[in-house]
């Protein structure tokens, strides 16, 4: 009797345990990990809200948002990926540089043609050379490099802002004039980035590629722009304190000086709009101005960041479909005050700031004026190698470690050396 009872009890326990296990397995949510860098809360809060909304509506998928510093995207992510680790999705800016790790999510997205129609030109930036069909992700925001001016300082100095067609030399001259009249310490400040230098260099005639389409960094156009930057540093038009505060190819932005109204003219890009709207506020009027001209063009550099997949599965496809949908993208772009990478998106920008509105119009209007060389450079898989060579060698020349002639020779050598290491030979 007792034996039978024990046997029954064990059977019931086993069946219950098995059922619990089966239900647990069948209802276990699939994890999708996103590695995300954001420009502060302005970008992190909206994306976190969207992810929460997605998780609530999709109990079978658990999206984990890892918010990391930009450095982690640039330096840690490539190592993780090389080691076969890494997230399912990441927000990256080195769009072509990581293309060997991207996964093709075409079979897992609801409507592949939506991606082609909405993000068409950008999809090629992520693809490996020769690939024309894969879908790896979508452009989160598009960016255009270009300058801002402290309009209040111009007004105080009684100097008129220059219009479209003004050259770099003319902008430098008026920035110096405003700085002198208002006692502002820094007439001009640039992001320390080869990408930022490249738009103006293309305006001066830089081609970046030889006739075969292979990287050929130094030419007369690049020399002209980098020489100008060198001269501005020596003359005090640009402060050595900014580019001198780091070494190598490390990125550095002059936001602290700008926010403190210590800069008349700042060369950066459209991604700063939301930040300036938050950080500068009513302290002074800031205005985005058209890209200054050189003999060849009046162009900035296109760019942006994309959410790209490193694993392809139905859950990743579903997350991508959700985040790239017009509704979600429009809401995100409207909150972060950016230029959409979506080709057909109506955005209701959530700001009353006239400076931000003007800047958004200026940068959106600059897109059609971007030179083809700039698009080709942005789409090139090895563009970072060229950007880094420019900034690290120019930085050395500016602080007196080498002459500009030596710096130009080194830029070409650096590119050649890195390409050899990457592709062999």
């Amino acid at each position, binding site marked *: 009797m007792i034996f039978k009872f024990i046997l029954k009890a064990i059977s019931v326990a086993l069946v219950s345990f098995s059922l619990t296990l089966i239900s647990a397995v069948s209802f276990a949510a699939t994890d999708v990990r996103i590695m995300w860098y954001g420009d502060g809360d302005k970008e992190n809060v909206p994306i976190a809200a969207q992810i929460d909304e997605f998780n609530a509506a999709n109990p079978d998928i658990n999206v984990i948002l890892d918010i990391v510093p930009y*450095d982690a995207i*640039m*330096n840690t992510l*490539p*190592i993780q990926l*090389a*080691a*076969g680790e890494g997230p399912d999705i990441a927000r990256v800016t*080195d769009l072509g*540089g990581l293309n060997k790790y991207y996964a093709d999510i075409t079979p897992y997205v609801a409507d592949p043609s939506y991606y082609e129609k909405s993000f068409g030109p950008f999809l090629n930036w992520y693809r490996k050379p020769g690939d024309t069909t894969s879908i790896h992700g979508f452009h989160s925001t598009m960016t255009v490099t270009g300058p801002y001016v402290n309009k209040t300082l111009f007004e105080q100095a009684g100097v008129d802002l220059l219009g479209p067609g003004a050259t770099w030399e003319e902008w430098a001259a008026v920035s110096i004039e405003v700085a002198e009249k208002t006692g502002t310490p820094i007439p001009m400040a640039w992001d320390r980035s080869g990408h930022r230098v490249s738009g103006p260099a293309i305006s001066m005639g830089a081609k970046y590629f030889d006739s075969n389409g292979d990287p050929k960094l130094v030419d007369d156009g690049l020399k002209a722009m980098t020489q100008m930057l060198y001269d501005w540093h020596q003359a005090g038009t640009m402060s*050595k*304190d900014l*580019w*001198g*505060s*780091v*070494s*190598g*190819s*490390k*990125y550095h932005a002059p936001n602290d000086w700008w926010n403190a109204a210590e800069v008349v003219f700042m060369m950066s890009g459209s991604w700063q709009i939301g930040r300036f709207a938050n950080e500068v506020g009513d302290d002074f009027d800031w205005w985005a101005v058209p890209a200054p001209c050189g003999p060849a063009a009046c162009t900035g550099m296109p760019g942006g960041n994309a959410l790209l997949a490193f694993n392809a599965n139905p859950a990743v496809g579903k997350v991508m479909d959700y985040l790239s949908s017009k509704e979600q993208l429009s809401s995100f772009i409207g909150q972060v005050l950016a230029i959409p990478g979506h080709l057909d998106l109506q955005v209701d920008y959530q700001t009353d700031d006239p400076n931000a509105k003007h800047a958004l119009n200026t940068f959106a209007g600059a897109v059609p004026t971007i030179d083809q060389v700039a698009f080709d450079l942005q789409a090139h898989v090895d563009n*970072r*190698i060229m*950007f*880094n*060579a420019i900034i690290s060698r120019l*930085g*050395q020349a*500016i*602080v*007196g*470690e*080498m002459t500009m002639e*030596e710096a130009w020779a*080194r830029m070409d*050598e650096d590119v050649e*050396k*890195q390409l050899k*290491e*990457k592709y*062999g030979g």
Partner: protein
Amino acid sequence: MENIRNQTKIFFLRILNIPFAFLMQAIDLIMWPIQKIIGVRNMPYIFLLPNLIFFGLFVIIPLGANFFFSLSSGDELLFAERELPTTKQYDQLFDCESYLNPNTCTEDFFWRGVYNTIFFVVFQVGLMIFFSVLTAVILNKKIIGRGFFRSVFFFPVLLSPVVVGLIWQWILLKNGAFNAIIESYGGDKVSFLTDPSWAMASVIFVSIWAHMGFYTLIVLAGLQAIPPNLYEAAEMDGTSRERIFFRITLPLLMPNLLVVFILASIKGVQTFDEIYVLTGGGPGTSTSLIVQYIFTTGFASSGSVQNFGLAAAASMVLGVVLLFLTLMQLYFSRNKESKHQEI
């Protein structure tokens, strides 16, 4: 009553002992046959084995991997996908027209790192020993608040290098606290961290500030080990204070100073984090040391090719320098021990 209490105590101790006894029996069950096979003499190796496994796993294998990386090329991380073997990385590292001019070297960043490291170590270690001795001599005297000052000088050692870097960045930046003081006295701002002629001096100063406490402690221990009767005898002979210092204190302090010299040199060659936070190696490459070169080349290339092979080759070179310094330390410390034994 006392007897009952003792018996109860023994009873509970025996109960508590049961699991340990069981454990020891279980261990004995494993150890006994091993001892039978390898003999009692070799048993210490069995006890060292767990530690050796961890040492091998986390030190020896990575060292070996680093060596093989230095003999490979390509931008892949996995060995199977890398080109092997090649001395290309070492050739590239040592390809110079003149080793005295980094601009003539293929890897000019490496050679700038080498020269900066040599400059940094020479001045940092030299000044650190000087200030450590000075501070230790003062702290060895019967001054008011001696315990407090000993703590104050040691406190920076407890700080993380990143914290040290951030604190001093805040103080030394052009808009930092130090320049605010200079300006308030009518002076001009100084670019302590962004002017190449100031930057190295600034990082040496900060590094001394951060590490001096540790070395002061070693020197202080040495000072306290000097027999007081030597000083008494010297005073009775009317010896001047300078002569006492140079003829008694300094010679007897030499073994400690040697330890300080070698330890500080090893630490100096390895310096990275506080400088990386403070100046990022800039302006240009004026404060970029070898370890930063290795880090940037291998892991922080900001989108350029992550050249693990070149970074590994550079770290092998650094390893040789550190090995030399460590052997020096071992040699001198053993020399010192044998002299003590002779005495």
